């Protein structure tokens, strides 16, 4: 396969011709929708009057919860999310009413004419307050191994502490959008920028009170998603569909950037409490960690996210005695949701923070503590949840990256630099990632495909995965091309459509190509078998061959008789013969990942099909006066198995890393005491820009280590690289700690903004002077 195959849509991207939902040609009948959202964080609706809004010229519908024909419910797992508030208000930004009008301006004006009387009640905004008030959303989850009591009793050293990781806004460039078009009878077609068309379909159907076969959801491409369109795209789809259903007109609902930032959930903030026992060499004996997640007002995906955080709370380290508690706390904020890494980043950050603290106490390079605690190959390889870490690549990657990054030489250089500079300090850190691949909810690990071959030999592939920029369709196209032995250009991957592939899982958990690639392969195997049957017959009767179906090869756009290779038919000709023989050229494919299970009560099981590994080394320079930092260099070595498309995989690694960089440095969400998000626009919410990436950025794939049992021996690569950015946060801490000669571990949360860096420096200086 050609590793340089470019993104299937790149020509459309660069020329402005790629069609996103907002670019679909508008019908003259199209109505524009707006949402009236709660301005208070908690309370009840006393009364409302929609008459003035309804009377405004150009307004076609104003809906409240009473106008929902089906069920007023859009929670994806638990039924705790009303589509429109039925009286109880639980966060600023909660949808209460919907408006559809001839133009966006009229819809906006109509919103301002809605009269509502509410009564505000006490709200819980801060996670700390939720914990204090005992506002648990679900029972506490636990994973435990060994005996932590005993280990702490016998410990040589014990540390404890807590730290906070912040919320992160997805900031997909394309905000949430849906276009709902009513058909005949009860039909509804919804174009929705969603990662999970089947769920969007199901929830739209339930809200309209119709059967699911009446609703068709389609998505060609999203302008970014990152988890933010896994469940919360459903909201916009449902709202648009309700309005379209009432008005019998197409309705488009696109959230403005501010609406999107205020109304939708973010990466869960975590408050992590930890205690760890270790010996004088730095070997960790026990860890007791509590992961407190800020769920927001409802469940959404919080429980599986906490679960994944727990599965990654030990990151790449063997901890013989460990207790991990996961707690979902309810606050009066939008429901937090999936975001690349899905709890993994928070879990890992907790562990890496522990390692740093141990290093400072033992006065060692944190790299050394990391290395001695790694999972090993033959022993020390059992995770706290009972899965063995197989095909462990940690040591291979470590050996390579320590060399290529010149880690130890640069450590010396950093020490030298710091001893010669008063106002600038450098820091260096290496951080590993071990990331479990699969949906941890076993039944989600299934996928479907439908492959059609047309009479001219062109192939149309449908599968359940969605394209959000990650290049899934490109990879699927390459997989189909390799399996069918025909040119990539003869294959087209269609828009994802629930009418073509039913009952799919979200494109999430980095599993897009693993699952859908296998399903497509399954369909192609069926088709090849049918073609081979017909064509071997053909060669026998026309070419005097004695070949069987097993002797038929698909290569270089030909169908070939292996026993007599001069017997060959161009693919398209072969297809025509199959057609004339009246054999179906359309096949479905299906795949389920084998061997996955997990028992929540026991906290044991085998939740992952395999692990992906990676490491990064980052060097930063901080300015002690301004708190600004620069990333001088980052080296990454990442394991993508046998890569299907190296350029796409490198793109995922770099993109994921830079997104992680934002999470650990500049992306900060603050709320006022009334639950208003202060950083609700890019004016105050700062994702990395081009000058924030490492000045020297060296990204490489681990080669020579194919992944057994996956599609073309590749590995999922969407999420794992996000967490490589922890090396930047750790390097910043390393630089700060140099102010006190690495004797004191700086207390600094995620994100380490310029301001928090300055405050950490002040604190560390104050401690030094004590």
């Amino acid at each position, binding site marked *: 396969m050609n590793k340089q195959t470019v993104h299937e849509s790149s020509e459309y991207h660069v020329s402005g011709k790629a069609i996103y939902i907002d670019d679909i040609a508008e019908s003259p009948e199209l109505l524009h929708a707006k949402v009236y959202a709660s301005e208070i964080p908690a309370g009840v609706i006393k009364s409302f009057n929609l008459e003035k809004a309804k009377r405004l010229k150009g307004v076609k519908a104003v809906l409240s919860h009473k106008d929902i024909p089906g069920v007023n419910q859009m929670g994806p797992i638990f039924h705790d999310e009303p589509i429109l508030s039925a009286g109880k208000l639980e966060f600023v930004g909660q949808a209460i009413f919907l408006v559809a009008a001839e133009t966006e301006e009229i819809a906006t004006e109509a919103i301002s004419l809605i009269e509502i009387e509410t009564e505000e009640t006490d709200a819980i905004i801060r996670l700390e307050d939720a914990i204090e008030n005992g506002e648990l959303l679900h029972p506490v989850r636990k994973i435990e191994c060994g005996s932590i009591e005993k280990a702490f009793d016998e410990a040589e050293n014990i540390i404890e502490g807590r730290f906070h990781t912040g919320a992160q806004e997805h900031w997909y460039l394309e905000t949430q959008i849906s276009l709902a078009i009513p058909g005949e009878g009860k039909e509804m077609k919804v174009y929705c920028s969603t990662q999970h068309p089947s769920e969007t379909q199901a929830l739209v159907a339930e809200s309209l009170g119709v059967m699911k076969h009446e609703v068709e959801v389609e998505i060609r491409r999203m302008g970014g998603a990152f988890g933010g369109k896994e469940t919360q795209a459903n909201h916009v789809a449902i709202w648009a569909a309700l309005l379209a259903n009432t008005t019998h007109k197409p309705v488009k609902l696109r959230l403005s950037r501010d609406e999107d930032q205020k109304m939708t959930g973010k990466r869960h903030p975590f408050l992590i409490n930890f205690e760890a026992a270790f010996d004088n060499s730095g070997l960790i004996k026990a860890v007791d960690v509590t992961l407190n997640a800020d769920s927001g007002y409802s469940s959404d995906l919080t429980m599986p996210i906490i679960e994944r955080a727990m599965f990654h709370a030990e990151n790449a380290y063997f901890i013989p005695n460990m207790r991990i508690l996961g707690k979902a706390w309810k606050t009066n904020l939008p429901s937090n949701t999936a975001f690349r890494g899905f709890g993994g980043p928070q879990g890992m950050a907790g562990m890496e923070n522990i390692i740093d603290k141990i290093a400072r106490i033992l006065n060692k390079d944190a790299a050394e503590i990391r290395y001695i605690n790694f999972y090993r190959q033959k022993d020390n390889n059992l995770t706290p949840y009972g899965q063995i870490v197989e095909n462990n690549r940690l040591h291979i990657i470590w050996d390579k990256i320590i060399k290529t990054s010149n880690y130890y030489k640069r450590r010396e250089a950093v020490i030298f630099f710091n001893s010669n500079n008063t106002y600038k300090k450098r820091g260096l850190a290496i951080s590993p990632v071990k990331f479990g691949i699969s949906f941890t909810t076993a039944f989600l690990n299934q996928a479907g495909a439908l492959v059609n071959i047309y009479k001219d030999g062109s192939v149309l592939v449908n599968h359940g995965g969605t394209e959000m920029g990650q290049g899934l369709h490109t990879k699927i196209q390459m997989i189909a091309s390799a399996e069918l032995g025909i040119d990539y250009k003869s294959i087209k991957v269609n828009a994802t459509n629930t009418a073509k592939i039913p009952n799919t899982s979200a494109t999430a958990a980095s599993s897009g190509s693993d699952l859908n690639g296998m399903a497509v392969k399954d369909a192609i195997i069926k088709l090849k078998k049918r073609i081979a049957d017909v064509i071997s017959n053909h060669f026998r009767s026309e070419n005097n061959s004695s070949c069987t179906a097993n002797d038929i090869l698909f290569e270089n756009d030909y169908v070939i008789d292996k026993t007599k290779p001069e017997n060959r038919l161009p693919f398209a000709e072969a297809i025509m013969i199959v057609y004339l023989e009246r054999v179906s050229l359309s096949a479905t494919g299906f795949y389920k990942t084998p061997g996955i299970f997990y028992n929540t009560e026991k906290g044991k099981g085998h939740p992952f099909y395999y692990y992906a590994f990676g490491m990064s080394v980052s060097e930063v320079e901080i300015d002690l006066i301004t708190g600004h930092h620069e990333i001088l260099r980052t080296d990454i070595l990442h394991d993508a198995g046998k890569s299907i498309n190296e350029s796409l995989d490198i793109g995922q690694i770099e993109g994921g890393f830079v997104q992680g960089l934002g999470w650990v440095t500049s992306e900060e969400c603050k709320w006022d005491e009334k639950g208003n998000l202060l950083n609700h626009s*890019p004016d105050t919410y700062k994702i990395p820009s081009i000058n924030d990436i490492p000045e020297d950025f060296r990204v490489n794939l681990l080669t020579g280590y194919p992944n057994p049992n996956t599609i073309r021996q590749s590995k999922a690569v969407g999420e794992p690289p996000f967490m490589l950015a922890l090396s930047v946060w750790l390097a910043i801490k390393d630089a700060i700690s140099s102010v006190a000669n690495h004797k004191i571990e700086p207390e600094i949360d995620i994100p380490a903004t310029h301001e928090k860096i300055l405050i950490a420096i002040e604190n560390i200086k104050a401690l030094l002077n004590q």
Partner: protein
Amino acid sequence: MNKHNKHIKFVLDNEIVSIDFNKDPHLKSTTTLLKYLRLLPNHKGTKEGCAEGDCGACTVVLVELNNDNTLEYKAVNSCLVFLPMIHGKQVITVENLEESGKLHPIQKSFIENHASQCGFCTPGFVMSTFSVYKSGNLVTDTVIKDSLAGNLCRCTGYRPIFDAAKEAISDIKPDHFSNDEELTKNQLLEIKAEKGSILIEKGKQIYFLPFKLTEALDYKLKHSDAIIINGATDTALRVTKKNEFLPHIIDISHIDELKEIIDTKDSIIIGANLNLNDLRDLVALEFEALYDILNVFGSKQIRNLAGLGGNIASASPIGDTLPVLMAYNASVILLSAKGKREIRLEDFIIDYRKTSLADNEIIKSVRLPKTPNNLFVKAYKISKRKDLDISSVSAGFRVILKNNIVNEIALFFGGMAAKAVRAKNTEQFLHAKKWTLENIEAARRILFDEFKPLSDARAEAEGRKIMAANLLKQFWLDSIVK
């Protein structure tokens, strides 16, 4: 009054387009260029990512005919541009780059370098790159990054985008725009030849676009309710973000007299509407502190639109140029139909978003006295992100030392109070003292408590106080290496 034209004209898709707002039900004079383009069937490549100038997804290139008969290609955020502002210019969108089915070298480079993932940001990056390409100059990596810092991408991590832009810019060849140059010039000249200012009255909204300063001043005298706009990088947000209705606007962005820069013996006089990119280049040598600030001011797209006049008239506590201009002892030259006055900038800014600008006045220019040799001026900006961010704290400082004794000192801060303020207590303490680290440390403690800044989305009060105090130290450090 009857001389006024009612329509605007510009070049799009190689043709002169005329808009008569009263004939088009979808358009108002405050409709943004982005909205307009997205209403057209063939220009949906221009995307909306934020509608506030922060993401660059809406970037298009505006081509202007300069007085020396050259064409200048400027990237702007189309989400901040009101339609009449493009009068007399050519608009180039991503769709225009392709010619009869052949992609532009920039587009090819983006494909080959895998510079798009979801692709939503891509048209904007392509257009920002295009503006550099058309400058015709080979540029440094820093200049490329500076030109792309106003575009956000959430997918790629930027490395391939940078590579793509660099590769395209390293091999600039004449493109179809070069071939069409004469046609474009003639079209722009043809529009320019139409005399008379533009007055658009539609519904309850009036938009006046004069070409001469006197017209603007006369109009302002008669209509004191009309608000002035130049780049609209502040004002457009009132429409796009706050849904405000602006009933009466005078757009002074087409008045050449407000864009001049005059070099006299003892000062330079900067036209209020000179765009900040050009200004940055012009002051690079003589007013380094101003240059430093303009370097981290908004983005290239924003600086292509914005002028000093808007920054000063907004009188925002976080207006970045205010502390540095005050440190240079700048004064503001104000004009009305009745006369002219000049006032020190420090005195012009009265309070939170309040100046002493009279109803009928406009800011003509800003005078910067040339700095005597013994005057040391520096300016700083601290923000969460290096580029395209509003400051948490900014500062402009000046000091005159005689025998290492402080003879004169002025310390101005942004972000520390309701307006750009002077740290009088700290100055007083330092005055006539030795310029030593010890005294600076003592001054820092005074400075730490001198202001009571706010905690807001950008920073906490505590953090701001540390930053302000630290900047004084940075000033001292910079002064001794000098």
